[in-house]
């Protein structure tokens, strides 16, 4: 969308760009490491570049790596990616009124390019959708300016990481950096008691059920964690939305 000069000319584009610029380095550094991790987990250069350019979702890329290497069936990898990305489903409900006036291809392109930070910055700047066409245009330009920075930083440094990884010996084990960044993301998701429990149950189940074929241990682990939490919610009368507003 940042290829559209009509959007770039709106003043809000620059505002979005400037707001996002300071965090671009952090995003880029994560991209750099993801680039290294993809290659060092055993993907080819072409596969790593394709994954970077197409998937554009760090945590689902990193989660897919061990599954791809283990030869898990496609549906298990895609289902895992879907679960990892579920937070975006929540974001999309929030973004709907900001985008619904546009043609579908345009909404989908904006949605595809709006990752976590762009969403957070955008909804912080504009708590409500504008009620005039000019206001909606400005909001679109701000969103585009913000994710343009994110996209460029992520792509440039991911590709740099892929290039650099060729010079790093595999036995250094830099692929583990990908696991470590997922550790941080898991910690960021474990915000309530039940969510912490879900994480622990899923981890234990995935290890215990590791011998299952087709990497089904992942699917069983997610199922066990979610069902146990449902049961506890009911049993203890907990309201997840009350514990944590998602």
């Amino acid at each position, binding site marked *: 969308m940042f290829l559209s000069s009509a959007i770039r000319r709106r003043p809000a584009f620059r505002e979005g760009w400037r707001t996002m610029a300071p965090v671009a380095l952090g995003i880029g550094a*994560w991209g750099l*490491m993801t680039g290294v991790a993809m*290659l060092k987990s*055993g*993907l*080819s250069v*072409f*596969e790593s570049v*394709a994954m970077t350019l*197409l*998937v*554009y*979702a760090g945590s*689902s890329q990193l*989660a*897919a790596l*061990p599954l*791809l290497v283990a030869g898990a069936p*496609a549906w298990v*990898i*895609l289902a*895992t*990616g*879907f679960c*990892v990305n*579920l937070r*975006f*489903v929540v*974001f*999309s409900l929030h973004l*709907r009124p900001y985008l619904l006036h546009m043609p579908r291809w345009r*909404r989908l392109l904006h*949605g595809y390019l*709006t990752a976590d930070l762009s969403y957070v910055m955008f909804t912080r700047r504009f708590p409500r959708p504008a009620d005039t066409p000019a206001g909606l245009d400005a909001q679109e330009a701000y969103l585009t300016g913000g994710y343009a920075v994110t996209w460029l930083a992520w792509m440039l440094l991911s590709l740099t990481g892929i290039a650099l990884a060729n010079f790093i010996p*595999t036995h*250094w*084990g830099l692929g*583990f950096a990908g*696991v*470590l*960044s*997922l*550790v941080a993301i*898991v*910690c*960021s998701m474990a915000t*309530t008691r039940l*969510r912490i429990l879900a*994480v622990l149950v*899923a*981890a234990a*189940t*995935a290890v215990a059920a*590791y011998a299952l074929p087709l990497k089904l*241990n*992942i699917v069983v682990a*997610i199922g066990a964690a979610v069902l146990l*939490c449902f049961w506890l919610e009911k049993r203890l009368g907990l309201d*997840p939305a009350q514990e*944590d507003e998602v």
Partner: protein
Amino acid sequence: MTAEQTDAWTLLVIVGLAGVTVLTRCFFFILDRPWTLPDWAHRALHYAPGAALAAVIAPEILMTGGHFIDTWRDARLYAAAVGVAWYFWRGGVLGTMLAGMAVYLPLHLGLGW
């Protein structure tokens, strides 16, 4: 699968994952008419993402060659523990990764753990 080898199946999965990115990021504005998730699905949103990631990484940290690790001399354990500690002390994905790798690399390369 060996490094440096591109295969069609992996590329197909990558294209599928790109589809998953579009599907999840656009979930509620793909269709024009408004709609909502059933209640159980809405509740699952609280638990499934963390569970999915934990399920992927736990074996990567705790298992070797399909078996639970039987030694404390494993760099991954200490790197992950330091990573978690860093996250709750300072926060941030990048810091967690760097702190963990700062423990992992010396143990792994220096001591061969």
